[in-house]
């Protein structure tokens, strides 16, 4: 019998893009019906972080309000007679309750540690006897830094003592015929030159990029695991592999799908944070008398979209590489989680003061995109690092895809033979390749 191709009239060859489009559509349609993916890639980015920020700041306000409502329990030891005015101020302050006790100092300190007392005020002779004038004294405040009430009591008493000291100096200077301007020499005042808009951009630039990275990673996480390990667990992997789609197109469609959901999560989250920043921060800023204006420069929008695509492109490729070794969703989660944690590490360093876009930082993946986004949201466009960031990110994505292509050439990886063990793959395939099969 001859074996010349006898193609059937029905099925025809398709263009790769058409195949990818069909596969991509299927992935997306199925994903948007999956509760876990919708929650993690859409609902959490939109609601969770704005909600968390709101809860955090509202909680902070509440705690601050509660602390202000406390009466500080204070014991004062040996107040100087010459400064009875100070004692009076302490006695008449409604937020301070002076306790009368003869307990020794050590016992009082124990009470502070236990929390039954907030502060011990000791009036001591000055440490430099030679320099001391009659009536001089040192105030020592014993408190517990680990207790909010104690810290608050210390602040209150500290303010009263400082105010008393300033008033006393002023009074004494006048009594001796010295004008305030003569003895004060200079005064200190500060003025914030940043506009409301700039303050808004500053806070947005501080918060949004960090949450953005977390959200893009979270947006990629479940789709990446689901697209490979989930498919194996549901036993649909073999069904797909026996279809006429090429392996490369299958992987490309899955990759595009993960990038889409990761990027979508990032952009939705960014929008949500921008829209909710003002109401979230309003209670905090109202205490300081400041007002925020949260607006994003128009030019920042394409930069944000580009940042989402670049970041999702890199994160998706990395996560899919790890997920490709897993056979079940659980294994996939275990494989991808360390990578997820790893990509969040550089973001922590961005919180250090003084970190700015530079050509050097533009070559560090994730950090570079985050800085580019931060600059754009703040209205600063530093083009050389931004261009380098795009170039480096594309190179990192290409490299990751190359690595993925290298890994999926192994049949046993495609079939999920490594049970979620990267070590097993490295041991068998990289370190100690099995000998070639003997001819039959």
């Amino acid at each position, binding site marked *: *019998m*001859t*074996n*010349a*191709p*006898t*193609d*059937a009239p*029905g*099925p*025809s*060859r*398709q263009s790769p893009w058409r*195949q990818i489009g*069909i*596969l991509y559509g*299927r992935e997306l*349609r*199925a994903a948007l*019906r*999956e509760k876990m993916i919708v929650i993690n890639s859409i609902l959490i980015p939109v609601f969770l972080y704005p909600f968390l920020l709101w809860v955090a700041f509202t909680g902070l306000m509440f705690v601050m309000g509660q602390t202000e409502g406390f009466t500080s329990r204070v014991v004062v030891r040996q107040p100087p007679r010459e400064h009875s005015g100070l004692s009076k101020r302490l006695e008449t302050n409604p937020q301070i309750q002076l306790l009368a006790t003869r307990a020794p100092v050590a016992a009082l300190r124990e009470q502070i540690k236990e929390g039954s007392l907030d502060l011990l005020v000791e009036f001591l002779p000055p440490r430099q006897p030679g320099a001391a004038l009659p009536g001089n004294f040192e105030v020592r405040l014993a408190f517990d830094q680990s207790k909010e009430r104690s810290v608050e009591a210390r602040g209150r008493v500290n303010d009263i003592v400082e105010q008393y000291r300033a008033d006393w100096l002023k009074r004494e200077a006048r009594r001796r015929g010295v004008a305030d301007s003569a003895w004060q020499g200079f005064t200190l005042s500060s003025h914030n030159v940043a506009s409301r808009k700039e303050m808004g951009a500053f806070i947005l630039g501080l918060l949004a990029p960090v949450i953005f990275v977390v959200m893009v990673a979270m947006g990629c996480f479940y789709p990446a695991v689901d697209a490979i390990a989930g498919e194996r667990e*549901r*036993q*649909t992997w*073999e*069904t797909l*592999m*026996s*279809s*006429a*789609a*090429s392996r490369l197109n299958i992987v490309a469609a899955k990759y595009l799908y993960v990038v889409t959901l990761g990027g979508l999560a990032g952009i939705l989250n960014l929008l949500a944070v921008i829209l909710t920043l003002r109401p979230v921060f309003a209670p905090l800023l109202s205490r300081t008398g400041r007002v925020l204006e949260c607006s994003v420069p128009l030019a920042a929008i394409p930069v944000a979209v580009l940042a989402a695509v670049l970041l999702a492109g890199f994160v998706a490729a990395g996560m899919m590489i790890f997920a490709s070794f897993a056979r079940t969703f659980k294994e996939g989660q275990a494989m991808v989680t360390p990578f997820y944690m790893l990509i969040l590490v550089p973001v922590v360093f961005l919180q250090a003061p003084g970190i700015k876009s530079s050509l050097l930082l533009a070559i560090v993946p994730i950090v570079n995109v985050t800085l580019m986004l931060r600059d754009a949201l703040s209205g600063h466009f530093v083009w050389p690092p931004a261009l380098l960031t795009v170039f480096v990110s594309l190179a990192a994505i290409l490299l990751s895809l190359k690595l993925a292509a290298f890994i999926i050439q192994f*049949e*046993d990886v495609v*079939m*999920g*033979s*490594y*049970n979620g063990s990267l070590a*097993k793959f490295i*041991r*068998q395939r990289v370190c100690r390749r*099995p*000998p070639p*099969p*003997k*001819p*039959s």
Partner: protein
Amino acid sequence: MSAPVSVHNLTKTFYDESRGQVRAVDDVSFECRPAEIFGLLGANGAGKTTTLRMLATILKPTSGHATLMGYDVANDPERVRRNLGFSSSTTALYPRLTARETLDFFARINGLPEDRVAERVESLIRRFGIASYAGARIDKLSQGMKQKVAIARTVVHDPPVLIFDEPTVGLDVLNALEMQQVIAEFRAEGKTIIFSTHIMSEAEKLCDRIAIIHQGRIHACDTLANLRTATGQHYLENIFVHFVQQATANAQPSPAGANLEAHGPDLT
């Protein structure tokens, strides 16, 4: 007329950490004729699934070659898959798609011309009685309903060759009988079918020719009548045992680990 499926000296070895090289399929050769049900009969782990996975281009042969509709499985896998419908007990459907979406997806991804997709999907929905639940998601369907959708999925692109790898595993008697009837109908339509099973009665009832596979090797391949004549046994069960015993008796001492378990450790 050329053979729709032609397999020559097909071999597959796997590497296993604990056992070294494992030969799952060993020098297997056979041909399938048009409009024939070709049975691959073997015990669990005999090498049936690995052979069929190589034909479906899911696995690459270590040596030997096979063609499907004239296309080489190793060199032209996409063309092979376009001409093939593959179904096994481990090929599941997407739970979050509806039955209609499933058929539509597999018709299009397998290259059925766009203008034929809707008509083909609807005709299969009618043929397999899927209409009442065509809009329901797969995960809401019963096992029997899923099975019908799975069969329709396998043939939606109208391939000339069909592979059914233990298709009745896990099915109740009625569903299994229905599956057998459908496979017989496909033969009547002129399709070439490779049917793998370890259930003797199924093979006896359905297959035009039967290959007995044991420890990765084919020990007999003929019509049931000829196998009966060759062995002097009537029942396929006895015929199968005859060849397995013969193979065991003839087996030479082989290197440690070889041929013990036909599948690789992770490819069952």
